[in-house]
């Protein structure tokens, strides 16, 4: 086994070092010590449509106002890059597709169809694969839903954000609450049980009371999946500037903490199970695609600024890489045309780097990280070995924020809300344990 892995290795030194230094025990069926989980021939696919008609006041994403109608060339390039990355990753099955942006609902349904066809041609796209499209709930958007359905979309994620028209204006949205409700209704008609609604709290001028009322209203019209996001002020956005100048104010930290907490309770009462920090589902309608992020599965990112995590086996590498596509659409288009993909950065993930991602993403799930899941990535170091002897972790367990038991590692209800306060500690422990060497099993690391 060592022989085959030696000939296959052509990657960066980090990965090669791993390969040579680790013991290869005959009993392991997975290639021991590699910085990728068992070779996966599956991945999910994220496609980025970068254009919007206007920019919302809080948005700092990679989005652009289109200057000319370049639907055709975009289509061509999305297909091209999809094909290239599929071949590069050598996946034989795409488990889910997500069209995000920008405003993907501005794209032509035929574009969506074409991309999906490319996927089918070069890999497998099963009938049950979840194909989600983000929708901006304007009249234009809702009129296209049926066509999108025919193009192959089987799930809609609608950016409702708020039912208060005044707030929608402040947020710079180009729809009102009526439009939103209509869009949700139409989507539910076309894909019952497969519609997700995005809601935003912590908006300027919002109070806990008004939020609770609004949420109640929303939940009466929502489908089986709700994503709850707290508004964050990002530098360089219009909203940030307005708040800085004192023209607007957002609720304080303490208030948004209460809003989050009370939203969780309300959703729970209404039958939605919280399965992730920001995501709630009833009737089991969780988002398959996003799950692949939290479970640290492979994903391909296509389109300007898209992110990916996969092993470029087609080039003989064995390490999972963190990849980003060129941000600017015009530049991306040129690059795809010239060399069939617009990958701007690719950084191999070390064994530790990958584990860090597994930890950070996995703990966002209410179920956390099971021991089995962790073992896929870290066959030699289990969670007990890494964490249980730390006094700080013991403290977190005692104060009821973190749970480490025979199921695995997860946050409690309160712990989930404070996850980012706990992660640095956990990351330090992980780093200390792993860099110390997998052979050293002293397990007596004190922080």
């Amino acid at each position, binding site marked *: 086994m060592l022989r085959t892995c030696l000939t296959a290795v052509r990657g960066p030194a980090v990965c090669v070092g791993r390969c040579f230094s680790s013991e290869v025990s005959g009993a392991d069926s997975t290639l021991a010590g590699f910085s990728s989980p068992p070779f996966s021939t599956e991945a999910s696919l994220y496609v980025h449509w970068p254009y919007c008609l206007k920019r919302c006041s809080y948005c700092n994403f990679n989005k652009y106002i289109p200057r000319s109608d370049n639907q055709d060339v975009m289509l061509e390039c999305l297909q091209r890059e999809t094909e290239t990355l599929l071949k590069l990753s050598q996946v034989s099955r795409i488990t889910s597709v997500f069209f995000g942006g920008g405003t993907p609902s501005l794209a032509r349904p035929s574009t969506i169809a074409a991309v999906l066809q490319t996927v089918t041609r070069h890999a497998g796209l099963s009938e049950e694969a979840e194909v989600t499209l983000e929708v901006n709930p304007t009249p234009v958007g809702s009129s296209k839903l049926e066509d999108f359905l025919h193009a192959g979309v089987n799930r809609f994620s609608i950016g409702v954000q708020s039912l208060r028209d005044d707030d929608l204006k402040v947020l710079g949205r180009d729809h009102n609450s009526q439009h939103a409700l209509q869009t949700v209704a139409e989507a539910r008609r076309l894909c019952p049980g497969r519609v997700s609604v995005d809601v935003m709290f912590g908006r300027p001028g919002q109070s806990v009371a008004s939020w609770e009322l609004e949420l109640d209203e929303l939940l009466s019209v929502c489908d089986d999946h709700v994503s709850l996001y707290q508004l964050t002020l990002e530098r360089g956005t219009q909203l940030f500037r307005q708040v800085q100048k004192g023209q607007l104010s957002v609720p304080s930290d303490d208030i948004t*903490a209460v809003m989050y907490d009370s939203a969780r309770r309300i959703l729970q009462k209404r039958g939605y199970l919280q399965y992730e920090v920001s995501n709630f589902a009833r009737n089991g309608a969780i988002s398959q695609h996003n799950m692949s992020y939290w479970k640290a599965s492979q994903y391909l*990112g296509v389109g300007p600024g*898209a992110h990916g995590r996969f092993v470029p086996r087609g080039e003989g590498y064995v390490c999972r890489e963190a990849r980003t596509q060129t941000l600017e659409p015009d530049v991306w288009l040129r690059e795809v045309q010239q060399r069939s993909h617009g990958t701007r950065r690719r950084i191999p993930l070390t064994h530790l780097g990958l584990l860090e991602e597994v930890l950070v993403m996995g703990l966002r799930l209410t179920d956390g990280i099971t021991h089995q899941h962790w073992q896929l990535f870290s066959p030699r170091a289990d969670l007990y070995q890494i964490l249980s002897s730390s006094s700080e972790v013991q*403290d977190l367990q005692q104060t009821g924020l973190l749970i480490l038991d025979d199921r695995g590692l997860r946050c409690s209800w309160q712990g989930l*809300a*404070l996850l980012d306060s706990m*992660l640095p500690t956990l990351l330090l422990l992980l780093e200390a344990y792993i860099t110390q060497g997998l052979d050293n099993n002293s397990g007596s690391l004190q922080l």
Partner: protein
Amino acid sequence: MSKFPVERIRNFSIIAHIDHGKSTLADRLLELTGAIATTDKNKQVLDKLQVERERGITVKAQTASLFYKYQGQTYLLNLIDTPGHVDFSYEVSRSISACQGVLLIVDANQGIQAQTVANFYLAFEAQLTIIPVINKIDLKNADPERVEKQIEKVFDIPTEECIRISAKLGTNVEQVLQEVVKRLPPPTFKKEDPFKALVFDSNFDHYRGVVANIALFGGYLSKGDRIISAYLGKSYEVNELGLLRPDEHPTDRLYAGQVGYVIAGMKEVKEAQIGDTLYHQKHLVEAFPGFKPAKAMVFAGMYPMDQSDYSALRSAVEKLTLNDSSVTVQRDSSLALGAGWRLGFLGLLHMEVFNQRLEQEYNASVIVTAPTVPYKAILSSAKLIKNRRAVQKNMVYIDDHRVMMKYLFPLNEIVVDFYDLLKSMSSGYASFDYEDAGYQAAHVIKMDILLNGKPVEELTTIVHKDRAYSAGKAMCERLQDAIPRQMFEIAVQAAIGSKVIARETIKAYKKNVLAKCYGGDITRKMKLLKKQAEGKKKMRYVGTVQVPKDAFINVLKRKDK
């Protein structure tokens, strides 16, 4: 060198207040006498340390022997560049004792300042010839006439004796050299007397050991001679000796009246203390008076950022103190900061320069706790001064524009930032000098700072009873700002014994989790988390409370509003 008759030797120093232009004048003198080539790069050639160049100050005294031709004769002029700061007045006084005269530089605009006065008295008491030099006459605001009158009034030196120059442009600098030759007496030492030399500086060279700068007051010294240092009584053999021009020029002999360097197998600078006397093994002489081992006035605790850096910091401190015998070092340890040292300095500037050198030359990062002053147990402005428990002693009008005031201050009140505040309140014009006035009884008490009930040792202070509440409250507020929120509430308290006199609270986080990772873009979040994890490594724990190292520093610096 023996062809230099003592009558044609002149030993002089340049003394002045900070920034009045000593080092620039020294540059010009070196250029004029050909010791260095005339180029732009000669800005302050004698300031060798990086920190000196950056801050525009001289820390270590440097020396150069210059040859100057005047009226057909060649003269040997020994120039000793001196530090211009109050902290180093002892070094200045030793340098001066090796001279027969000084150039007293006064800025043509600023006029007489605190150090001008202090240094004048040093030279005057040593009965040296004083040549007043008015510098920076090229600047717009220069008023040499006013300054000359000032000098006459305060120092009783006739205005005709002043030389007006611009060291920067070189104006009249040649005249300075001439006056040195004309007005300064030659040294009165005799070659026939037994060898006797004053050590006025020393530094440590890794390859050759201690290099001592000496001024010969009698006899001569040859390579291979055996000499003894009066302070420690140890004997050494002279390996190398020579002139400083300003670079080392080895010779076989140095004669009375000359100034130069000697390398004699000393291993530590402590063996060549400033002010010490050297003499031949066979000829015991009387030691020079006025020698004192350096006395520390200001103390600071120094701790490594992280205990794993302890030995690196220890070696950096050792190396630096090799070259600075006036720093006192004592091991110390703290609950909050781990193992470290208590270092003693001649003054605040001395301490700051030391720290800067630690960081720049040795890449050491240190936590520095507040300077404290020695208290003897029993333990017991107009707005600026009033707030600092000062007692006015006298007041003298120097001229129409300025007044000199003497106050008696508890040292504690001026030791941290008095000087900075004085400068900013007076737009730089006020200057300040201090000397030890002995101990006085005062009602002081010990104040603790607690975080969630646990005392933070490093923040324990001794305060005057009248100041306890305001100091305690200020510290609590400062800590409240400096410590980041955590998952539990933090009570910050100031206490005297068991009585809490001030309190602030740091609220707990109720929510701290990123809302959404868009489209699988987790790189930014990972970077941020990893940065926070790194930051954690540098935090100190007081009980379960994480305290960044900056918090201590921010708190301990005093700011009056």
